[in-house]
């Protein structure tokens, strides 16, 4: 498979990640388009030292960070304006309200959202995700823990304080 083919093959997961990261189709497509442009324009510099997909994720993450600095509040505002549905802790149904999850993802701090989606959505290993984010694995683990706990709380599914079962 040529490098160009590998780049193309990485696009679907890049798109999935970008859409979850931005929660805005146009912004996500723009981010992938810019990433693709960057990857293609420097593919002659590609040294073949690792998976192409990881390289492209790294490019996307760099662009995402750069872009956020330029318009730091843009997406946050959109998400904050979504109606909040405070849910009781008794809600333990098997499926989560997807809209609520989507809004909760948007309220996570950027670093937590980037980390959580690499692992929870893209199925990357802790080692892979830590390398991509340039952070130690221990930092990633606590970031994931915080992200998952925040998500659980925001979707009204906090761990019950008074245990109904026997511990």
């Amino acid at each position: 498979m040529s490098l160009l083919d590998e780049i193309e093959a990485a696009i679907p997961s890049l798109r999935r990640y970008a859409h979850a990261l931005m929660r805005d189709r146009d912004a996500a497509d723009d981010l992938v388009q810019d990433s693709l442009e960057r990857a293609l324009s420097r593919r002659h510099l590609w040294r073949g030292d690792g998976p192409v997909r990881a390289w492209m994720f790294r490019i996307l993450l760099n662009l995402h960070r750069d872009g956020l600095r330029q318009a730091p509040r843009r997406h946050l505002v959109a998400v904050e304006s979504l109606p909040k549905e405070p849910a009781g802790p008794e809600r333990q149904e098997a499926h989560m309200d997807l809209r609520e999850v989507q809004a909760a993802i948007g309220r996570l701090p950027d670093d937590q959202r980037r980390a959580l989606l690499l692992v929870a959505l893209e199925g990357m290993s802790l080692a892979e995700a830590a390398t991509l984010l340039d952070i130690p694995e221990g930092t990633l683990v606590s970031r994931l823990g915080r992200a998952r706990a925040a998500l659980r709380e925001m979707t009204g599914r906090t761990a019950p304080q008074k245990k109904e079962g026997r511990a």
Partner: protein
Amino acid sequence: MTGPEPIREEDLVAYHSGALDTAARDALSARIAADPAARATLAEWDRQDAALAALYGPVAEEPLPAAHRALLAAATTPPRRPTAQLLAAALALLAIGSTAGWFAAGARAPGVHAFTIADDALRAHVTYVAEVVHPVEVAADQADHLVQWLSKRLGHAIKAPDFAAEGFRLMGGRLLPGDKSPAALFMYEDDTGRRLTLYALPEGGAENSAFQFMSYGETQGFYWHDAGLSYAVIGDLDRDRLRTIALAAYDQLI
């Protein structure tokens, strides 16, 4: 009330991410089996993953947008070789190399003007690293012209240091407005597209200073003053790597 110590969250994260070896996994499985709170947490995390897959999984099945396909189609024609690497390698390397003890020597608290420089350098960095189409005014393939032009406008001989050893190539540079004199900005990029900038501003009266570290969220930098010029190296790198690059700049700009 649960008897043994509760399972640590980091262990649950490692367990859930499949990061444990068989022995550790088996040991933890037994403890989880006896811990309803841990089981509930893991089940909740499974539901989170399922919700994410339901929300965004279908995106990966969609046909690629036309704009992406157009880029790929255009890329089937071979790219032209960049001259940036050659130029970067050819840049004179005036490494005097005596950085030992330098941090200790002449260290002083940064003055107000130092913060102004840090702030200006940071704003220039943030403004231009995000630029996709026009990140630099003069590209690295005209590096000689760039350096001569900036030296003339700043009234100081200035160079674009070579950070190839750190994996960063010169992209080019631009002239920026400054307080009393224009400032120069050089931009560098690694092969993942991560960018860093070197900012230089003539500052006649300022005293030489040790490296000062600054941090603004994920963006960090070192700035210093040396022989009539104030410098800042700024990027989204960890502090040690950035320090190595700043030292390389210092050595080459001396």
